């Protein structure tokens, strides 16, 4: 991983690729690399869809190695949704494959010279770029079927669907999984729109003939990996709950806690929760011949994914994640599994962020465009997005824009990005993360649910403001560092509770790269990433007044606990005061 591949889309005669040494970005991976490169090379005041913006695609420091759970990919840019810096993170095969080919990053830069679409093919011999005109307008599923016909089923793909081509602010970038389905998305912040603005439809990565990356100290690395995998397997969350029920094991517990946003964040409990819970999904998937336990990339130990078949036993989509089940389910008043699975499939096919889309459909429902619980209407609305109709263009640009278009105050967004599946009034720690993360409302940026609800890493009462600032601060720092390693964020459950598993992670990094990192160095890494991101946002015009929840979260009490968000603005301003 000592090479950066820059693809200049402005070149005459179509994009040109140039490999260069990693240079100033040596020793960086994942989010560290994407955020530092965006902060250094992209003018903060540029338009996100303009020529000065860049897409940076970076595997983590441990991606492409034998280390378990190391297949996460970071995709960075200036976000067309938030107007700030963005790192969207995805599983699937791409990170491992890119890293094995020796790339620390692939960068798409410049102004597309024409309206053409291009395909980028990368293998051990180099890079080829050709017209993708034949793929124009294709959904991710058909696109990948065509790629398979041509390149076989051993490659990994990074692609956009029609939403990315339309440059919608909710457009995602899809990564293929082990079965070569385009189900793993860098979802948030409209990264797909930026890829679309660069005129790149798909990047095909072929690691045939490329070896696994080799550690500096193979013996220590092997021992560390053994301890690492054992640690993940022995923790009851990473070794038990997640593989058995997937991320949607959360539906019942968040609903029970009264923090499960229902009908566009009107109440904190959903009557239909048990019908769409992880327990119900797992039983249905098994009954229909799908899989309830499955990994999204080679080397996954936790196996939280699954395969969802339709009523006829035919593949429909991957097991919808908790966030998707919530967004298209409870938040829209929909309690039908097959509807949620179909919406997940459509979002993946068009290349859309499921969180933003569910939040947006709920806003449309709240505005009276359709009724809460209207399953067929929700599917039709997402199909409008796929068609690119005038209504679809509004919906495809997210919850904030849709609320504005329909004259509605209740847009559950921070910095223009929709809140995920936890109400910040009943779970105040996550509210602090939503408010202050440089990414906009993002649960993964500092997953306070672990300590507020799940009692992982201790316990901080979710219904009170005390302790939430420190909790979110520490989690945001740790998360930024984990996002640099290429490790799946779910390792945090084991790392927070088991000091020996955290040590195994340090040992993996040190033995692979010949380093001597300590816990303090990891903290410093997280802080440096957050600082670069916040500096970019500040230069892009962000102020502390943007580190706030919409005011109705302070005004409207949420049932059943009848709580408002009571962390003060002054306290929010202390999150990054370390």
């Amino acid at each position, binding site marked *: 991983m000592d090479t950066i591949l820059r693809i200049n889309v402005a070149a005459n005669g179509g994009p040109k690729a140039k490999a260069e040494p990693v240079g100033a970005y040596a020793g960086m991976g994942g989010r560290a690399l994407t955020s530092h490169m965006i902060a250094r090379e992209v003018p903060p005041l540029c338009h996100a869809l303009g020529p000065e913006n860049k897409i940076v695609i970076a595997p983590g420091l441990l991606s492409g190695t034998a280390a378990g759970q190391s297949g996460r990919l970071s995709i960075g840019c200036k976000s067309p949704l938030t107007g700030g810096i963005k790192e969207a993170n995805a599983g699937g095969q791409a990170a491992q494959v890119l890293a094995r080919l020796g790339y620390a990053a692939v960068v798409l830069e410049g102004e597309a010279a024409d309206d053409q679409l291009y395909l980028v093919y990368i293998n051990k011999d180099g890079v080829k770029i050709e017209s993708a005109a034949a793929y124009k307008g294709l959904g991710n599923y058909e696109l990948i079927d065509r790629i398979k016909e041509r390149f076989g089923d051993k490659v990994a793909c990074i692609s956009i669907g029609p939403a990315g081509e339309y440059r919608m602010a909710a457009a995602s970038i899809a990564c293929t999984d082990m079965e070569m389905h385009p189900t793993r998305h860098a979802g948030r912040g409209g990264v797909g729109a930026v890829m679309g603005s660069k005129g790149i439809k798909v990047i095909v990565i072929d690691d045939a003939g490329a070896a696994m990356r080799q550690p500096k100290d193979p013996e220590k690395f092997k021992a560390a990996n053994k301890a690492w995998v054992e640690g993940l397997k022995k923790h009851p*969350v990473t070794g*038990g709950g997640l593989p058995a029920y997937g*991320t949607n094991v959360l539906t019942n517990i968040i609903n029970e806690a009264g923090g499960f946003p229902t009908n566009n964040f009107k109440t904190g409990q959903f009557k239909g929760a048990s019908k769409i819970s992880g327990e119900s999904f797992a039983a249905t998937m098994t009954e229909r011949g799908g899989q309830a336990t499955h990994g999204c990339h080679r080397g996954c130990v936790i196996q939280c994914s699954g395969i969802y078949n339709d009523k006829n036993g035919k593949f429909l989509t991957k097991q919808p994640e908790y966030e998707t089940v919530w967004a298209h389910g409870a938040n829209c008043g929909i309690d039908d599994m097959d509807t949620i699975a179909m919406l997940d499939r459509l979002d993946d096919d068009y290349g859309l962020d499921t969180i933003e889309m569910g939040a947006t459909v709920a806003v449309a429902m709240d505005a009276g465009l359709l009724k809460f619980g209207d399953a067929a209407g929700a599917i039709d609305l997402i199909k409008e997005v796929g068609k690119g109709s005038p209504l679809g263009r509004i919906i495809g640009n997210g919850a904030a824009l849709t609320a504005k278009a329909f004259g509605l105050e209740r847009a559950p967004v921070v910095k223009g990005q929709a809140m995920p599946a936890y109400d910040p009034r009943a779970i105040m720690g996550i509210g602090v993360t939503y408010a202050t993360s440089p990414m906009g409302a993002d649960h993964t940026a500092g*997953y306070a649910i672990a300590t507020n609800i799940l009692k992982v890493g201790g316990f901080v009462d979710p219904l009170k403001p005390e302790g939430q600032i420190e909790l979110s601060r520490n989690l945001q720092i740790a998360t930024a560092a984990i996002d640099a390693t290429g490790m799946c964020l779910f390792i945090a459950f084991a790392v927070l509770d088991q000091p020996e598993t955290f040590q195994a992670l340090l040992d993996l990094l040190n033995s692979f790269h010949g380093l001597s990192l300590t816990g303090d160095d990891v903290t410093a890494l997280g802080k440096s990433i957050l600082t670069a991101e916040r500096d970019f946002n500040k230069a892009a015009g962000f102020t502390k007044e943007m580190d706030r929840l919409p005011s109705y979260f302070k005004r409207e009490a949420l049932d059943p606990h009848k709580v408002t968000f009571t962390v003060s603005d002054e306290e929010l301003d202390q999150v990054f005061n370390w």
Partner: protein
Amino acid sequence: MMTITIKLFASLRQGRFESESRALAEGSSVLDALELVGVSAAEAAVLFVNSRHAGPKHILAEGDSLAVFPPVGGG
């Protein structure tokens, strides 16, 4: 005696039940309720009484709803 509702989730349902009403002596604790349905304190990682986090020593009251979760996570 008093009646409470006990709800079990995820792996705790295996060989048990999803939701049942049970009679308990006045003054019983969450731990007493867990013993009644054969769930050990170690298995019960997260407990809610009427949607609020509660500990095993919490004293139950007539009509309470006790929700019991094994260690779970996601996101």
